[in-house]
């Protein structure tokens, strides 16, 4: 326990960075993911291919590689800290998964709705925004929630680039105190404070959705 008390402010600082990175990346990846999901369902071949390539690339390479790429290569041209580089990498990586969730949501909406909206004079963009997306998001909520949980867990990647997050601080505390066992258990509890309630809430939502269906 004294390990916890002694390093409380360090853990808290790490927790703050983890939370901050997760929230930034969530907002960013929701926007990017939605854009790429829409690109994948348009009639334009080019847009579809771009959307597809983007999603396939970022789904199939490790987050660590993307992070290192931003931290070590991109940062040579555009200055950024490890926290920024890690958060950008998290955003891009997660957006590919969110694009898949949103696309599945869009596809679950009957094609007739789009046709109907277009017949009533709405443009593709308007129909998407007003009619399709709100329904698609509703369907996609559980899977989006799971992506957010993954995002929080994956934010531990920041530890590799000095991102000051929970995992980074945990490694430093473990190295200085040599009570690795206790330190990592404390770090684990901090992560669970965010992820576990979310996970139960999503299970609850999924349950409700299944019942309504």
């Amino acid at each position, binding site marked *: 326990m004294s390990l916890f008390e002694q390093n409380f402010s360090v853990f808290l600082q790490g927790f703050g960075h983890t939370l901050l990175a997760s929230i930034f990346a969530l907002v960013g990846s929701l926007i990017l993911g939605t854009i790429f999901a829409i690109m994948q369902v348009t009639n334009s071949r080019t847009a579809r291919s771009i959307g597809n390539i983007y999603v396939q690339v970022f789904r*199939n390479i*490790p*987050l660590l590689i993307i992070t290192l790429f931003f931290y070590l290569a991109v940062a040579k041209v555009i200055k950024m800290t490890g926290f920024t580089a890690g958060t950008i990498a998290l955003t891009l990586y997660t957006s590919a998964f969110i694009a898949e969730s949103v696309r599945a949501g869009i596809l679950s909406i009957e094609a007739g709705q789009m046709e109907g909206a277009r017949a009533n004079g709405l443009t593709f963009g308007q129909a998407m925004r007003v009619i399709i997306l709100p329904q698609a998001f509703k369907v996609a909520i559980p899977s989006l929630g799971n992506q957010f949980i993954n995002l929080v867990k994956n*934010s531990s990647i920041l530890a590799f680039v000095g991102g000051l997050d929970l995992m980074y601080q945990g490694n430093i505390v473990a190295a200085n105190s040599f009570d*690795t066992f206790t330190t*990592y258990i404390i*770090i684990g509890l901090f*992560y669970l404070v965010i992820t576990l309630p979310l996970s139960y809430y999503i299970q609850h939502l999924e349950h409700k959705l299944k019942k309504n269906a």
Partner: protein
Amino acid sequence: MSGFFSAFTEANLGYLMGGLGITVGVSIISVVLSLIFGSIIGIVFFEKIPYFSSFVGTINNIVRNLPLLLIIFFTYFALPQLGLHLPIFWATVVAMTVFQSAMLAEIVRGGLEAVDVGQFEGARANGLTNMQTMWHIVLPQAYKKMIPPIISQLISLVKDTSLASGIVLAELTYRGQIIYAQNTNFIVPVLVVMTLVYFLLNYGLSLIAKWFDHKLA
């Protein structure tokens, strides 16, 4: 352009590809082991045994909601404090298996729930025990349906193995880092090649998953 390729001497390339071997080795062993443990846990979920299923479910949720990186560090750095000294390769396999079993348990449960209930009853009416029904009738069908999600877990595993570079497992990502430790100009070429290798491997796997998806649909 010649500068780009100077990072890839025969020795460096061989070293890097050896790392790919370790990445694939860890991934395959872990996916097989987690399939076994994940199935056991998944069956416990599916059977809805009073108290027990929900208790196991809680533990499973805890594991699923921890960062894999933390589990890896814990296995290699903290378990020896309990007298468990795992060589780095096996420490990674154990960490991956613990994490992936929790993930696969959910998939197995889903697969089992998708199997027609009538088949249980039919099999039992034919005199098969619970265990026999599960083993001969239900599981084979459930697994067929689960092939695509299991392959996507394998993709996650291949990607996640890169995290073990944090404990100095000499897999692909770590070996890339060692190569650019020789000369920092190698960084971009090495990252590009690593990206390509991971992409080709995982994209190939995802195509296989898609093929199964079509075949089973």
